[in-house]
């Protein structure tokens, strides 16, 4: 253990960055939703840094987060990026709130919620408005030699880099087996719906809707289920007077724009 809670800065900058960014994420969830750490029961937030050698990744293992330093050629220090840290930490939140199965559409939604709160928290951290924000995920972990500007784009899925295969509409839904049936690929579809909703409602209303939606989801949930629960959640929050009155309609329209519409009973 290099640095524990309330310890002062240490010499290793990466340790301090992981400590500070994780703390920012925890404070956001606590202050905004009253969530007590990742599991709402005060779970210790443990970050492992400098993992492996030139390791181009960050992951959540069910209990802790782990970050690589990057190869220094195309990628750099994953622990210093607020959106990456938030993304990984939210995998933990999702595990405890909905335990979404990590394959197919439920897996893509798992990735979606991590990107959603990664983006929200990045904008809060940088004190940006929705129009100032770049809506990119992982823009600070790529170097100038990387063929792209980021790992993913919430605003324009499929355009972040030369390898970015994310669709932004159900017409282009990935049906292959790679990446646990496209968990990092098809997440582009709900990601785009989230972006469109934010541009109409603002990020705080959307954060509230998405967080309350996540709490209602189940392990094998599909895109259409999530869309319907989002609209229901927006209706409930709107009746309570907590969000913009037009939110349910906006959410419905945003999902319709990416090819997800409500099935009439």
């Amino acid at each position: 253990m290099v640095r524990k809670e309330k310890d002062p800065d240490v010499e290793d900058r990466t340790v301090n960055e992981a400590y500070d960014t994780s703390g920012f994420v925890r404070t956001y969830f606590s202050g905004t939703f009253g969530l007590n750490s990742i599991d709402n029961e005060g779970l210790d937030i443990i970050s492992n840094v400098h993992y492996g050698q030139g390791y181009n990744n960050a992951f959540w293992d069910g209990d802790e987060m782990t970050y690589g330093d990057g190869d220094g050629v195309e990628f750099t220090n994953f622990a210093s990026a607020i959106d990456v840290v938030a993304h990984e930490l939210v995998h933990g939140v999702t595990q405890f709130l909905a335990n979404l199965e990590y394959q197919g559409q439920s897996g893509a939604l798992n990735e979606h919620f991590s990107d959603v709160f990664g983006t929200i928290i990045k904008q809060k951290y940088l004190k940006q408005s929705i129009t100032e924000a770049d809506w990119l995920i992982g823009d600070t972990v790529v170097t100038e030699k990387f063929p792209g500007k980021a790992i993913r784009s919430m605003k324009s899925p499929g355009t972040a880099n030369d390898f970015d295969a994310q669709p932004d509409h159900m017409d282009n839904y990935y049906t292959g087996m790679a990446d646990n049936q496209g968990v990092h690929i098809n997440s582009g579809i709900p990601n785009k719906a989230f972006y469109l909703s934010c541009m109409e409602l603002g990020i705080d209303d959307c954060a509230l809707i998405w967080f309350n939606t996540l709490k209602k989801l189940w392990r094998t949930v599909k895109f259409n289920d999530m869309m319907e629960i989002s609209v229901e959640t927006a209706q409930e929050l709107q009746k309570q007077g907590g969000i913009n009155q037009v939110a349910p309609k906006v959410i419905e329209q945003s999902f319709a724009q990416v090819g997800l519409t409500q099935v009439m009973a």
Partner: protein
Amino acid sequence: MNYKIRIEGGFVGISKEYAGEITMGRKEKDNLKRVLVKKIENTNPKLRDGFVYSIDLWDENFEHRITYDESNLPESVRQWIEKTIAKTD
């Protein structure tokens, strides 16, 4: 010893493939083979954004293909991959 290493998935989601021939001492080669043929330990179902590692290794006397994920990749194989990739680059 000929090798092909494919690393997929992860937060970044960009697949990388490395292939070539690597010279290994007899002891190092035997140790690696011994680990590779062992039964893979259970995977961690709670793992998110972990890499998947597919390894093909062959020479005149040995041919082996195996796939690990982040949670069951043996440390010695991880170190061998890192060393091999560094030589490939």
